[in-house]
């Protein structure tokens, strides 16, 4: 890779990528994996952002390494270990949040770090697996096996069915837990279910961006969507589309200069978020300015 890769025009990059895409099966698989992951990150990321549980989601994502490590040590499929560990971490972290509010952040930090430490120990004691550590941490979308796509699609279907069935309950628990409890909604159950679905999303995205970078891809597209649309359903849709855009864009940008895809996707997502934060702030200020200079003192109603 040379710096000159950066000099090539974007048209060249896109032409090269599109050409490769039509000829290389692994790129098609990678593209599909990115799009499948976007559905999870758009739908569950919206809840993570509006409920402000990014820290909990981070704890779940990082402690998943413990499950991956244990799975490879005992000769099981790593993704199965990841799914088991993610669900367990979601229940533990959710239980802590519901029962032990006072030390919530410290306890979650402890689980976060212990899960990672356990994973590193297991992987260190498994001959031949050290080299895969980096791809668990930072993802490698180019190495997604074709049969993983069916697994990812199944997880997406699971998420969409759960959210469609319990949309009212999830919204109520995300919005106002106390009121939901008074209306007879089993808040603890739906809160834990929500976190389990976040855990499923983390597993969905591990191969794409890895468990360290996953948090950005869950939260940032939804946060950008939240700058412009104001309903949970629309946020989910826009965040899914943005997720598809950044995973595909990251794949395309990294292909020519042979950059690691996961970090490219994340920098693209982070850049998009920052630009959007500045733009939406500017738009809000302009609206406020206009309100003041337009109909001075908009009639206040009750």
């Amino acid at each position, binding site marked *: 890779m040379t710096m000159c890769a950066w000099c090539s025009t974007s048209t060249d990059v896109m032409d090269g990528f599109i050409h490769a895409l039509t000829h290389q099966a692994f790129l098609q698989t990678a593209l599909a994996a990115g799009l499948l992951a976007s559905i999870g990150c758009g739908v569950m990321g919206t809840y993570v952002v509006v409920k402000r549980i990014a820290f909990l989601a981070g704890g779940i994502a990082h402690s998943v390494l413990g499950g991956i490590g244990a799975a490879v040590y005992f000769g099981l499929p790593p993704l199965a270990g990841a799914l088991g560990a993610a669900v367990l971490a979601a229940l533990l972290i959710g239980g802590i949040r519901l029962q032990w509010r006072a030390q919530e952040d410290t306890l979650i930090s402890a689980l976060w770090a212990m899960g990672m430490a356990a994973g590193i120990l297991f992987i260190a004691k498994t001959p031949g697996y050290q080299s895969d550590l980096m791809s668990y941490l930072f993802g490698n979308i180019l190495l997604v096996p074709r049969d993983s796509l069916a697994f990812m699609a199944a997880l997406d279907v699971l998420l969409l069915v759960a959210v469609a069935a319990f949309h009212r309950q999830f919204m109520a628990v995300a919005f106002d837990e106390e009121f939901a409890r*008074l*209306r007879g909604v089993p808040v603890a159950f739906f809160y834990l279910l929500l976190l389990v679905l976040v855990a499923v999303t983390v597993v969905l995205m591990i191969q794409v961006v890895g468990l360290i970078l996953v948090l950005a891809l869950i939260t940032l597209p939804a946060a950008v969507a939240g700058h412009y649309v104001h309903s949970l359903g629309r946020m989910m849709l826009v965040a899914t589309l943005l997720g598809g855009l950044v995973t595909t864009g990251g794949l395309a940008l990294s292909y020519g200069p042979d950059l690691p895809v996961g970090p490219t996707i994340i920098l693209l997502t982070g850049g998009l978020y920052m630009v959007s934060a500045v733009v939406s702030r500017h738009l809000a200020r302009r609206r406020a300015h206009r309100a003041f200079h337009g109909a001075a003192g908009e009639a206040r109603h009750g």
Partner: protein
Amino acid sequence: MTAADPVIELRDVGFSYGAAPVLEEVDLTVEAGEFLGIVGPNAGGKSTLLKLVLGLLEPQRGDIRVLGRPPRDASRHLGYVAQYPGFARDFPITVEQTVLMGRLGSGGWLGRYGRADRAAAWQAMVEVEAEDLAQRQIGSLSGGQLQRTLLARALVGAPRVLILDEPTANIDQRVESDIFDLLGRLNERMTILVVSHDIAFISAYVGRVACINRTLVCHKTEAVEGEIIQELYGDHVRMVQHQH
């Protein structure tokens, strides 16, 4: 329960969050159709009393019956407007969707709100004169508009008892009167409990006042006079009355 049974009954209730008791030896009976004002100094246990009645907290001592049942089993028949709503004002949700949440627990578990839910939400918004706000984001509402929305959310489940914690704490006096006029009309068909620190203001609206300062200091039907205020607040009456 029969019509003559009390709507709310507390017997020798005691509650503590930690070492120091917040409420002690509280005996209180509320009859159907009453409009009860609960007053008392800050940290006197007013909000805690409401949360016990709602079943959000369990007393360490004593017994609470609401509509003849343990509070938790009665909560679907209660409408509640909290002092500090537990949601972020920038949550992406409209007034209508917020009001619809009051319909949870009636109807099925799966899927979306039905036509009956939407009709009930509309009716509740009309009742509090918030129907023009239906599609507004809650983050864009004024204090009074938000309070109307939360009142509609409490009313949409057709409660038998309406429980409000400082419903007018952050809104101006004219709107405060509007809201209490509305509560007066609602009182024709439901029992109302309202917490306030503003004893002078609410005494014009409520039928009876219960004064709470760790225990039930007094409950009077007649207008609350200086002597009782003195008993409740000690020597700092003026300060207390002017703090809002």
